[in-house]
């Protein structure tokens, strides 16, 4: 019997779910039949707006739980709130919230490194640690709960021409953290995998995209294009579905092949 590529009846938390890759992840889960998707975003107005828009689709329910997840107390409140609403269970966590900062090496601010590592690494760990009891309650040996982290091809490539030193290091850290969490949480029926996207136009990526030249980037990509929302939607849905229940500790590159093409840059 084919296993399905669906997440029917599942509950999910997507941090940074109001826009960009996080939003695509939410859309993928909703299209796959998720029952409820909780989204966090720092800006309450934007979080609410996305909630309203997505709820108009008439798919699963989207619930905005705005807050700055680098504040561990707030993150804890958000996850406790989900626990109360879902009888202490949660099927899927997409630890997506992330930030970047670009500045030349000699004047790169220390605070920028701290800020980026805090959100991109420390808060990913905190999200998984705080949500683990809910995930453990929902997972079974045949259909484990899922954690998806969002790495990046930047985590493999040391290109620093854009001066995103913290971001590059943070994404390499996310990949490694994903592997160690997969070994720790696998026995608790929770799988942990990372997606490592190439360039997907988003508010965060657009600045860099302009700098590096969008046309060039498309031309140098083996697939001759940048990523599109559907690419991420499909990958997230696959990884969260029964079809991927044996995938654990994997870093899945989704970049059209650019990472391996010598002319491509990031």
């Amino acid at each position: 019997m084919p296993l399905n590529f669906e997440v029917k009846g599942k509950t999910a938390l997507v941090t940074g779910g109001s826009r960009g890759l996080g939003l695509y992840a939410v859309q993928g889960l909703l299209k796959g039949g998720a029952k409820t998707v909780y989204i966090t975003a720092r800006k309450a107005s934007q979080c609410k707006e996305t909630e309203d828009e997505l709820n108009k689709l008439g798919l699963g329910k989207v619930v905005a739980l705005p807050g700055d997840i680098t504040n561990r107390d707030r993150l804890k409140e958000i996850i406790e709130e989900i626990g109360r609403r879902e009888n202490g269970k949660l099927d899927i966590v997409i630890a997506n919230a992330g930030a970047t900062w670009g500045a030349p090496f000699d004047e790169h601010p220390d605070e920028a490194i701290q800020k980026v590592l805090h959100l991109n690494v420390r808060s990913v760990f905190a999200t998984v640690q705080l949500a683990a009891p809910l995930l453990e309650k929902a997972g079974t040996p045949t259909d484990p709960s899922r954690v998806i982290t969002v790495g990046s091809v930047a985590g493999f490539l040391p290109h620093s021409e854009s001066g995103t030193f913290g971001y590059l290091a943070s994404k390499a850290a996310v990949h490694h953290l994903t592997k160690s969490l997969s070994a720790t949480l696998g026995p608790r029926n929770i799988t942990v995998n990372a997606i490592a996207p190439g360039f997907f136009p988003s508010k965060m990526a657009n600045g860099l995209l302009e700098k590096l030249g969008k046309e060039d980037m498309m031309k140098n990509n083996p697939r001759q294009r940048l990523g599109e929302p559907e690419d991420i939607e499909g990958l997230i849905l696959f990884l969260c579905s029964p079809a991927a229940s044996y995938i654990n500790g994997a870093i899945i590159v989704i970049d059209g092949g650019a990472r391996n093409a010598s002319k491509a840059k990031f």
Partner: protein
Amino acid sequence: MSLTGKIALITGGSRGIGYSIARLFAENGGKCIIVSRNLDSVQKAARSLPFPERKHLGVSHNVSQPWTDDPFEPIDIVVNAAGIPQNSLLMRLKTEEIDALIDTNLKGSILTTKKFVPSLLKTKGCIVHVSSVLGSIGSPGSSVYAASKVGIEGFSRSLAAELGPKGVRSNVIVPGLVETDMTKTIAPKILEQMKTKIPLARLGTPEEIAHTALFLATNNYINGASIRVDGGMSTSL
């Protein structure tokens, strides 16, 4: 996940992971051409696939040999799943055994890919290779097998850059320990020991590997990637 109207050629398709991929592709609308050395078993396997009205084919061919001209229809998906195991230490391996491992596992994937690239360029199709977690973890008695499997990953990455601009994708599935005839030969005691090193504490099923193949056949932006499907085995050693 529909493969309606697509034609897939699957080497090593009469049993194990290859057969599961053929079965899942057929269940999802595809027509399958499965390839294996033994004519009887490959035809029997082709007949057992669901939706026989699509006229799945069983083709007898040894992948270590060059393909001769053939009457195949345009191929949309090539799956290189044919492989043979290694069961002894390097010092005990005969030269013929080394040749067979490289010729089947590595050269076989190369020759089959080369044969069907012209067809894939027309259909804007994709290639899915099946490697092994043994290619990236050091395990005694797997030396040449590991070399053949990790070779496939390098082959695929280069193909992704070469064929991507022409609309053809190439990706690798890296299975861990999977319930097949190949792992049945492992002594039960050793198998139990191995399971303790897998975070999910079980072997994968051929169906689980097949689902990753189906996903790779349908996602349009994954190219040059290797996807590990091993329960976390390779992260815990």
